[in-house]
């Protein structure tokens, strides 16, 4: 009987009251700090590589930085540390390139039990797939536009 009294509005209020409240300011600060720190780690790797191999071209240095950052993101995801960072860092752990590595590695490990082809190899593109597709479509459009206007 009590169920009928529990109309939509009351239910929404009920849910709203027991839902854990996000502390907006705290999440924003954490995202800023963690995101900033990850970028600083990238910059340190960049500067160290440049100091060790001064003959490397700028693009090559950046490629090494990407490679190492992806490795770190992937490895920390595999040992379960990245998810712990993500719990308090929010977008601070999603937006950097390490978050991209996380989005590939995490489902690959998660769906390992479904086999290599249908588990690991197809599920690793759950988030990365849209990113790669969007990226390629956009870059081809940009390339063609620049070809036409003779950039």
């Amino acid at each position, binding site marked *: 009987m009590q169920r009928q009294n529990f109309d939509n509005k009351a239910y929404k209020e009920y849910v709203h009251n027991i839902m854990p409240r996000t502390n907006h300011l705290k999440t924003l600060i954490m995202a800023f700090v963690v*995101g900033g720190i*990850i970028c*600083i780690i990238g910059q340190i790797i960049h500067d160290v590589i440049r100091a060790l191999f001064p003959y490397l071209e700028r693009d090559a240095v950046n490629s090494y930085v990407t490679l190492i950052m992806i490795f770190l993101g992937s*490895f920390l995801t595999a040992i379960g540390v990245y998810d712990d960072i993500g719990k308090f860092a*929010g977008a601070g752990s*999603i937006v950097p390139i390490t978050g991209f590595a996380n989005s590939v590695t995490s489902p690959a*490990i998660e769906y390992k039990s479904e086999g290599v082809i249908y588990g690991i*190899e197809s599920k690793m593109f759950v988030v990365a797939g849209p990113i790669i597709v969007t990226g390629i479509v956009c*870059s081809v459009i940009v390339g063609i536009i*620049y070809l036409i206007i003779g950039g």
Partner: protein
Amino acid sequence: MEGIISTILKYLAVFATGGALCLIGQLLINYTKLTPARILVLFLVLGVILQAVGVYQAVVDFGNAGATIPIIGFGYSLAKGAMEGAKIGFLEAISGGFKAVTIGIDSAIFFAYIFSLIFRSRTKKC
């Protein structure tokens, strides 16, 4: 001494730029119903557009890794590669963007594959 100060300033710029981009991402998570995957795609497209209209290079010059490490820098590399390819020819204009980011995608796929064979999901253990 001057070298130290300029290094500190550079790292502050890296921290501020990277932090600000992540802050924007967190604002989108908190105040819109966008999922993380949509936010990543949005950032990527934004990076492509900003570079295509010639704005993002200035952000990269200021923030260095702070501008290239976030996923928006991925879009920047894509557009930059496509624009440089367009100067060479038709095929390079099509393939230039992907060529510029292939190191990131290749390494992400490779490491994810290796680690998924070695490690187990933590949630499945208990």
